């Protein structure tokens, strides 16, 4: 690793820390929009039975009588010590509750992510090689259409067709009652993954297709063809290789969209994951839990984006020449 790379990674780490602090600050400020409710979030209905002295004591104990800035730094201190608060709904530590289901979401998102990356790259190559022909135009139209269908509607249609009418795939949960083997889990993943993939594949394909199409109009492609390479060889050996850094970038930008899709689809399939947790905690006003889901999701996206930036820089010598942004 040369010096400029080390400096670059150092900058990125600094950027990560600052981004995380701002993310936590934003989430904290939003959570305090609750109309006088953090007390209720903490003690639930018991708030109504408290005497004024008890209320004042409780407010003092939670630090609610301090200014917002003091509250924030107290809370930030707790967070850095690994104390993320108690989930009011589950009466357990927030991190325990999330730890139970985070794995499920990770599996769902990762499988969809891999399928979408591979399929959209394949589809983009397929389309570009037939650019302007009927097949390409039909795929583009179909793509725009599937991309406009709301995820929950797509998921519901899948449930209706494959679970209710055909009855071949399970319609809810991550495992069947009493089951839990690898095959059982895999079968439960098919419909959610399909719903996410179908509704999001066009977003990636479209971006890759236009990047690849730009690449195909460059001079070196003409040169390759002129010296006798077949179109197939040119595309696979040169063009696809040249757009790989862009593909990494596209997939990093795509991650928040994927997570949003996964969260919604989880709820439709009652798949025990972060999305279902988020919706339930919103329904039960369990703010501590909801805050943590937002922070963890945001942190994942920020981390992946920074890693993607570093990978792209290593892949693409041109990016090394650029002056990085200030932060």
């Amino acid at each position, binding site marked *: 690793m040369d010096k400029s790379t080390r400096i670059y990674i150092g900058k990125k780490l600094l950027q990560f820390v600052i981004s995380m602090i701002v*993310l936590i600050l934003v989430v904290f400020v939003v*959570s305090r929009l609750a109309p006088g409710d953090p007390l209720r979030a903490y003690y639930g209905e018991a708030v109504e039975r408290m005497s004024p002295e008890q209320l004042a004591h409780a407010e003092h104990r939670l630090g609610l009588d301090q200014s917002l800035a003091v509250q924030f730094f107290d809370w930030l201190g707790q967070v850095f010590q690994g104390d993320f608060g108690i989930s009011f709904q589950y009466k357990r530590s927030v991190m325990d509750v999330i730890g139970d289901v985070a794995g499920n979401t990770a599996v769902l998102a990762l499988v969809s992510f891999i399928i979408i990356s591979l399929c959209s790259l394949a589809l983009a190559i397929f389309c570009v090689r037939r650019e302007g022909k009927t097949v390409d135009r039909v795929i583009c139209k179909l793509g725009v259409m599937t*991309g406009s269908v709301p995820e929950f509607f797509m998921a519901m249609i899948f449930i*209706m067709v494959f679970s209710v009418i055909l009855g071949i795939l399970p319609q809810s949960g991550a495992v069947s009652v009493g089951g839990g083997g690898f095959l059982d889990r895999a079968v439960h993943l098919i419909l959610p993954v399909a719903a996410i993939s179908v509704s999001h594949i066009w977003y990636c394909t479209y971006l890759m297709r236009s990047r690849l199409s730009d690449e195909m109009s460059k001079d070196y492609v003409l040169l390759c063809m002129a010296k006798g390479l077949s179109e197939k060889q040119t595309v696979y050996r040169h063009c696809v290789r040249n757009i790989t850094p862009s593909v990494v970038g596209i997939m990093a930008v795509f991650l*928040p969209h994927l*997570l949003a899709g996964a969260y919604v689809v989880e709820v439709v399939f009652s798949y025990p994951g972060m999305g279902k947790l988020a919706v339930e905690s*919103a329904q039960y006003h369990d703010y501590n839990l909801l805050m943590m889901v937002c922070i963890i999701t*945001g942190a994942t996206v920020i981390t992946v984006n920074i890693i993607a930036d570093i990978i792209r820089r290593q892949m693409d010598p041109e990016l090394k020449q650029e002056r990085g942004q200030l932060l």
Partner: protein
Amino acid sequence: MKKKMPYVAVATLSVIILATLLADVIAPYDPGYMDLSAISTSPGKDHVLGTDTMGRDLFSAILYGGRISLVIGIAATGISTLIAILYGTIAGLAPAALDDVLMRFTEIIMSIPSILLVIFIQAAIGDATVFSIIIVIGATAWPSVAKIVRNEVKQIRNRSYVLAAKAMGGSFFYILRKHLMPGFMSTIMFMIVSNIGSAIMTEATLSFLGLGLPLDELSWGSLLSISQRAILSGAWWILLIPGTVLTVTLICIMDVGEYLRVNNKRGAVIARNGFMKRRII
């Protein structure tokens, strides 16, 4: 490649908008009326599109629900566009350091998936109403547009006409309105249009998840929120009909947005060609 005017999409959209506007005239039933003797009847003579699990006429409910869905889409996009234009212009005109900070902030906001952010803010401010949903969606949908506005403003901020206006003492809003907005409006127009679609989709998702409008406040989302149980009993129309209307609307909006986007890049060339032709004739 110039894209043809999407006549089908525009026509379909006009029909849908007109139908929701004329809901009072067209709707055969009161959308809120629960006919307990006609629960989950399939499409037929009495009820053209059938009834839902609460005995409401689906056709009337879709017409009145569409009104709310479209209003939310348009109003929320209005708010987010306003924020985006102000934020983007300030970032574009600001010195490099402040610009970096502002842009970094939008990226952090965008790192939380928008639907999660909407759920979070809506949960924090309490029970959902049409008004609160408009505000929440409007407050979360602006970062992507703001980025484009900022890039555009950066390109035109040093043009002589902007500098001249500044030198003559034009205020921030005067320059924004007279000199900057005409420059970037055509570029962000396609995003504004597709944001209307996203806002409608966000509302539908939110209500479907049970975090948006309650069942008795009709929108396409709240109408669909009862479909989960309905399809288990085989009442497909409760899911498919409102869902299809919603999806068709979204596809049409996206199609119009796509038309604006594709034609914008070459907008200047097309305009010049058109002008030349007229002169020759």
